[in-house]
Structure formats: structure tokens, C-alpha cells
């Protein structure tokens, strides 16, 4: 058991006997009220969404998981297919559970998968990832906050707002959580 205030994105929780992955976690203080954790969870098997709001001091049941390194093979529009690096065993995870990972994961790369028994619960995407700019589109009018910028597409299909000096074929470091450009990576 952990306090709701310790819940983080990517954690596995047991709710009503079923495993759920925390996909969003926000702390909220209503105008007149104590601190709450507002949590959005997804079932890794069915993709079902569950919403909860719990006082940060109250307990929730967390699941201890085994992390295994697995190679991402491909997806067929319904499932992501992985192979465990040690045993070469293949398994799949419904894409509906992590729809935005489609543009974050690279074919052939290794990812850490959290296993609960033989059930894959979560895919861990590194916080910062280097992508290749596959397509650089037109510049958008610069806003006053971040200066002149444009949208590019990475080799995985991820669209990122970057400074105008970024060219096709260059490598960029991206924050996978916010999907924001961090810096250009020199070879």
C-alpha cells in the first residue's frame, strides 16, 4: 500500500481486483478543500479508462512488477508486438492502452516492460529520446513567447515544434512526456 500522494504516472495499481496503469496524475486543491490526487488509469488488457480522486493522505494498493527488457518489433494497428530479450518469447500489448506510444517507439529498439506475473502492464519510454527529423515542413509565424518555430515530423511520425534552424535529417532530443523539443543533437 502507498499513499495516493505518492502515485506517479506509469505506476500499476490494483483497483477492485484489476490491474490498472496510471496514465495521468494531477494534484488538486479545490477552493475549499484538502489536497487530492486526481488519477486517470487504463486497464492494460481492455484499455478501459477509470477515473479516481483520492485524498493524498489515503492509501491505494500498488502492484509490484518485474521489469524486463524487450525489443519492440512492430504494430499491426491493433497490437504492439514485443520480444523478450532474454527468452526470445513474443507477446503483444493492445495499442488502445498506449495510443500515443505509436509515434514514440522505434522499431527494433529495446524498452523496459513492467510484468505482473506473465501479464505485461506497462511500457516505459525514456524521458528523453533522440529522433531523426524525417520531414521538415513550413515555418509557422513566430509567437512572442518562444520565438520563431516550425513543425517537423520524426522517423516515428511524431510531430514536434522546433526552432526554424532544424533541418531534415538532423537529430533532435525530445521530451517524450510533453513531446517538446529540447535540443539539437550533433553527430
Amino acid at each position: 500500500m502507498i499513499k495516493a500522494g505518492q502515485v506517479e504516472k506509469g505506476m500499476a495499481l490494483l483497483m477492485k481486483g484489476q490491474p490498472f496503469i496510471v496514465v495521468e496524475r494531477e494534484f488538486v486543491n479545490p477552493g475549499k478543500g484538502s489536497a487530492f490526487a486526481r488519477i486517470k488509469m487504463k486497464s492494460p488488457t481492455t484499455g478501459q479508462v477509470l477515473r479516481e480522486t483520492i485524498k493524498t493522505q489515503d492509501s491505494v494498493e500498488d502492484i509490484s512488477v518485474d521489469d524486463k527488457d524487450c525489443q519492440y518489433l512492430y504494430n499491426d494497428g491493433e497490437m504492439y508486438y514485443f520480444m523478450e530479450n532474454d527468452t526470445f518469447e513474443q507477446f503483444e500489448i493492445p495499442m488502445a492502452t498506449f495510443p500515443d506510444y505509436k509515434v514514440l517507439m522505434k522499431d527494433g529498439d529495446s524498452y523496459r516492460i513492467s510484468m505482473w506475473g506473465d501479464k505485461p502492464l506497462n511500457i516505459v519510454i525514456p524521458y528523453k529520446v533522440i529522433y531523426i527529423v524525417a520531414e521538415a515542413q513550413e515555418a509557422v509565424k513566430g509567437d512572442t513567447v518562444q520565438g520563431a518555430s516550425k513543425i517537423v515530423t520524426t522517423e516515428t511520425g511524431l510531430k514536434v515544434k522546433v526552432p526554424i534552424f532544424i533541418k531534415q535529417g538532423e537529430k533532435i532530443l525530445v521530451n517524450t512526456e510533453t513531446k517538446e523539443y529540447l535540443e539539437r543533437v550533433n553527430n
Partner: protein
Amino acid sequence: MTCIVRRKQYRKMRPCLTGMASGTMIFMDIEFVRKRSELYQRIRDFFNSKDYLEVETPILSETLIPESTISCFSTFFRSEFHSSRDYYLIPSPEVHMKRLIGQGYGNIYQIARCFRNSEQIGSHHNPEFSMLEWYTMDANYRDSILMTERLIKAVCTEDTPDHVRAPFEILSVAEAFKAYAELDLDSLMRPSLMREAIRAKGLSEGDTQASWEEMFNRLFLTFVEPEISSEHPVLLIDYPRALQCLARPIKGTPYRERWELYIGGIEVANCYTEMTERSTVKSYFEEEFAQLCSIRAVSGETIPDIDETYHEMFTDDYPACSGVAIGLDRLLMAIHSIKTIQGVILFPFSDTIGKR
């Protein structure tokens, strides 16, 4: 080696780097420092033209109004010549402004630095923030809606998006519960019925001793607040009496004369018809302070001193009034479409802390 940058050179450096929030650099253009200054000017012009007096009251206070859900900062006054004691950074300027009202100051406003401890530091919270608070005499919370609408119009600039300028949608809390949670709040005023609703909506049972207020907040935060429109400002009005505060109850109903304003789905303002009945203020102080002490005996948070004679100023002559508080950092974010509070604050608090 110390690097000295002369003022002239420094002013040329823009955008200036203000922070590294969650590993991402946020650049704050000097334009935003100017935009805050312009916002304050417009606020002052607005209130001065309506004959409100700008006041400045202490942010370091010897007592606070008890609020069991707001954690405060305390500091120690040390002196060889006077008795040393704790002082508190105000979570809002209310404690002193209400004294000025009692002294017959009339309509007053203040732009104050306020402090709240223990809140999650994120894109909408900085422990130190700026608040505009104003009080209108012989007015109620409905009169304050009109003032607030006019104020928002007066501070919008050419780059303010339409969803901020739009007329307010006024929705009672009960109506919002019906629309977004499909619950009839009027018929859930008993804890047992509220517990039933929690179960019916699929939330976990939680603490069996949970208060009505806690259960209300869980339902509100899960099903209602996320559905509040970002297309236009939304004013949620008439909050349940069970949420203890110094707002006047609405006769014959389980609600209070209180509203909160959401812009872009974010809470930016709070308003009451102020409670001015001496005996009710006294019992609020006693009950809320007892509640605060029992919570903090467990959590170890600071228990601020309160003024046990505070209620005495609420004589029969104390004016009927309505007070509004607006978070100015959030307002600045809204009128210029900035997503994080760090984007409008110089030297944000988040730069100074490590992750747990």
C-alpha cells in the same frame, strides 16, 4: 569568478532565461514583465475610476483566519527588546482588509503577495503568488459578478483569446452536478446518501469515516471540474453549506452565497457575500480552528495563531459587503494564452527545489 553585467547590457539580453522547470528550459520574454505591469495599471485604473481605495496591509501577520485546508508559512520574530514570537505569511489579505471595512474605509482593493504552503508545485501553483482582492460595500455576490465581468473586459488586450472575453456562463453547482455527474445534489445532503452516490459512480469506497465535504470534493473533482468548458468563462455559483467558509448561507437552502470563476477550465477567482453576523463568525472561528488543530496534530503542519476577539468587530454597524479574490498570475496566463505559471513569473519557485 563573478560576472558583472551592467544594467544597460542586461536590458538588451532577451529573451531572458528564467527557469528550468521539470528539465525543460522556459524562456520568459521581457515582454511578459511589461505585460504584468500593464495588467496592474489597468486594474488600478479600473478601480480608481470607480472610487475604490487601494490599500496595502501586512503580508507578515501575527494571526490568520483559521482555514483547515490551507497550509501556511510561519517565521519567527526575534528581538532583544520585545517578546519574540511566530508570525505568518498571509494566504490572502482578507484578515486585515475586513478590519479596514469595520473601520468604515468603504470600497477597497489590494494587489497583495500571498503564500500557501504544501501545495503541489506545478503549472498552476507557485507557493508565492499575487492576488487581487476587493470588497464592495452594500453589495452581494451577484453584484460582484457584474464587477468581475467588467474588470475582465477592462484588462483584456489585443492578443487576448476570445474564450477569455466571452460572457460568463453562470451555472449553479447543483446544475453542474446534474449535467456532468448525473447526480441530484439537493437529494445528497446526508453523508449516507453521498456514500451511496460515490459507490454508484464507481469510485472506490475510501475511508468509511470520510466527511460529506470530502465525498463531495471527490465527486466534484472526478466528474464535474474536468467537464467545465474552456470555451468561455464559467461561473460556478451556490456552493454547499457543508463546505465551511465565511460566505453567507442562502436562506431556506443548503447552499451559500459563493461563486468561483473558471477561465480556460482553470479556477481564477472566488467570491462571497461576506458573513458579517458576529455570532456566526465566532462559531466559525471556534469550529474551524478545532478542525485545523485536529488535522495538524496528525500532519505536523503549522498551526497559526488566531485572534480570538476577531468576531467582536462585526457589530450591527458592520457594512454588508461582498469580496472577490482573483489569482493574478493565472489571470495573466489566461489573457496572454500562457500555459504555465512559470511562464509569467520571474524566478519561479520550481527552479529552487529538488524532486523528492
